[in-house]
């Protein structure tokens, strides 16, 4: 399947395109995938998916470049790379930092794919054990995790996830054929299209954000010389690289958690076990490795819940889910039994994309530093022009453009306020799954306890309780840690 010229071309375009997109601060893989999504519908599933996978898996490689050179992460998940990458650049070690970031990314990427391959036989056994109630509970766990994972913004993430669930209910109810929140408008009967919302929230909002922002054009340091040196240095820190990749795989597998938690755990581990913990945040190679190895291990691991259960863990896999559906390839328990060739083709394409990307970066890093210089508003114009292709080519509908524009403005407001967008998308996707699966599960359930009378359903239920309990415990601990200071303040002002 992979030896076809169109699949290889898609992989090449996706991988190289992903690196370029990742290297431009202000674009990111979500914008690129959202724009390309409708274009891939006319392609065969494996062609369309390999192109999107290429972008997803390679963008973080490119994102490390501006993070190291100009202290601006190319993609959001490269933010931690700036902590140690940029200080290394400032002390004249830009080439060392960039090559180390590439090597760690490659290590993490390959580690994630190998875990995915070795876990496949287990997935093939476990996935068919998931019935309607297990998938419902897993989707519920995903929603809870995506809310609680936004530490310090739990209320905002909660309201936005609920908004996403509400959006997917709008339109004609598929079972009873009654209208829900259509306000008499016929265009709302078919519901609010996920891809239009994705394009508005990710692509158009980014265009608007760049166009209203002040104009800026960064000037990174030039990079000359051999970039393979990072592999030698990485080998000296192979323990940190491997453990960080392991965190990436673990966190990637859990819906709603993803790169940020993996990076936090990896960075903390690397610092605690380092001989030079004082260097962290000031240009530590181990810190850089922890950040890049963990975030690059996530994409392959995030495919596990998507392929095995049809449950996306974050926005990018949610977008890929729509490509599966368009081509009538339904991810879930049956996929491993009916389309095993497709699964193996995906694994191989993930390996190939990492190889293509690392070779491309070894020869093309210098020209990439010129791409970083595209001025902000000019970039906004490019994203706006590209967004149109994504929205309009879907159904040639002006209404879609209006809906996307409205979500674009909402996305801009959320980004300006630093509020999360991902809960809306996951709310839409997981909300739809929950509604369908709960309906079919309840047909065979007499009491609420029947929902958890099977081993996997019970385990997921316990996980839900554990996650909520853990969050409450963390809140109480944080609150207690703050109390003495607050008590002192109150005593001083004689308010008691």
């Amino acid at each position, binding site marked *: 399947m992979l030896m076809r010229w169109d699949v290889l071309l898609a992989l090449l375009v996706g991988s190289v395109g992903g690196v370029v997109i990742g290297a431009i601060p202000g674009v990111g893989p979500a914008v690129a995938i959202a724009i390309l999504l*409708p*274009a891939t519908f*006319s392609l065969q599933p494996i062609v369309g998916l390999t192109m999107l996978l290429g972008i997803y898996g390679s963008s973080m490689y490119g994102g490390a470049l501006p993070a190291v050179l100009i202290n601006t992460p190319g993609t959001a998940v490269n933010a931690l790379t700036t902590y140690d990458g940029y200080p290394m650049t400032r002390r004249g070690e830009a080439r060392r930092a960039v090559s180390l970031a590439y090597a760690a990314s490659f290590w993490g990427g390959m580690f994630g794919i190998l875990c995915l391959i070795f876990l496949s036989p287990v997935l093939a056994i476990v996935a068919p054990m998931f019935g309607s109630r297990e998938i419902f509970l897993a989707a519920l766990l995903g929603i809870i995790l995506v809310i609680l994972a936004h530490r310090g*913004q739990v*209320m*905002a993430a*909660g*309201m936005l*996830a*609920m*908004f996403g*669930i*509400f959006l997917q*209910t709008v339109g004609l*109810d598929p*079972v*009873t054929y*009654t209208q*829900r*929140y*259509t306000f008499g408008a016929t265009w709302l009967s078919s519901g609010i299209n996920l891809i239009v919302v994705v394009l508005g929230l990710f692509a*158009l909002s980014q*265009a*608007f954000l760049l*166009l209203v922002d002040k104009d800026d054009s960064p000037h990174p340091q030039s990079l000359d010389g051999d970039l393979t040196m990072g592999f030698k240095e990485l080998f000296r820190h192979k323990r940190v690289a491997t453990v960080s990749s392991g965190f990436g795989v673990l966190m990637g597998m859990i819906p709603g958690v993803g790169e940020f938690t993996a990076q936090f755990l990896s960075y903390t581990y690397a610092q605690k076990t380092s001989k030079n913990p004082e260097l962290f945040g000031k240009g530590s190679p181990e810190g850089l490795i922890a950040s890049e190895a963990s975030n690059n291990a996530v994409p392959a691991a995030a495919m596990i819940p998507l392929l095995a259960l049809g449950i996306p863990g974050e926005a990018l896999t949610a977008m890929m889910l729509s490509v599966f559906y368009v081509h009538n390839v339904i991810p879930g328990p049956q996929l491993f039994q009916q389309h095993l060739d497709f699964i193996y083709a995906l694994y191989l394409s993930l390996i190939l994309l990492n190889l293509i990307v690392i070779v491309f970066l070894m020869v093309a890093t210098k020209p990439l530093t010129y791409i970083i210089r595209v*001025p902000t*508003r*000019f970039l*906004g*114009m490019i994203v*706006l*022009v590209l*967004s*149109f*292709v994504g*929205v*309009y*080519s879907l159904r*040639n509908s*002006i209404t879609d*453009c209006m809906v996307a*524009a409205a979500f*674009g*403005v909402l996305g*801009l*407001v959320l980004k*300006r*306020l*630093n*509020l999360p967008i991902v809960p809306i998308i996951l*709310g839409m996707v997981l*909300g739809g799954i*929950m*509604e369908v699966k*709960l*309906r079919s599960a*309840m047909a065979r359930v007499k009491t609420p306890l029947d929902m958890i009378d099977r081993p996997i359903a019970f385990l997921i239920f316990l996980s839900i309780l554990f996650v909520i309990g853990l969050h409450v415990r963390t*809140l109480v601990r944080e*609150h207690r840690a703050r109390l003495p200071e607050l008590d002192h303040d109150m005593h001083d002002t004689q308010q*008691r």
Partner: protein
Amino acid sequence: MTYIWTLQALFRRYRRPGDIVFAWIFFLSALLLLSRIGSQTQVVDGNKLFAQPRFWPAISLSGMAFFAGLHLFGSAVSERIPGRWREVTIWLQSIEYAFWFLAYAIAVPWLGYLPSTLLLALLLVLRSGYRSGLALSGAGLVALVVVVIFKSFLHVKLPSGAVYELLPDGLRQIMLTYF
């Protein structure tokens, strides 16, 4: 009093300028939508609670109102950073670009994909304050590359321009098919 104080401490967070405006809008929207649940959804006789068409809108809107209420409370008790209305002005400025986008969408079926894209790219670059020949030629090049990739190579579904019908036969066919 202590309890209220503790509650405030629990919800206190960093908030950006304009946060409370958005929190109010979201909270009121959730309440407004929730108040219309009787007229906008139905209860079907004989269906179980979980299979009712009203069930999921009720769950999601109640959750939305609950979390939005707490978010608003958090915003109200957190330290304010000045610049609220300046921030709201920036939000409103983005609406201008939403109209640019819609004008582009309306223009494509009339002018055609290539001319509309060229026009939008050049006007948008001028609107953004660029005047140099490099920026203008760059915008033209970007527009051309985008059209060639998506329309000429990928044959993405986009309508041909009505003005193409006025072109001579040979050129018309090329423009209809590739641009």
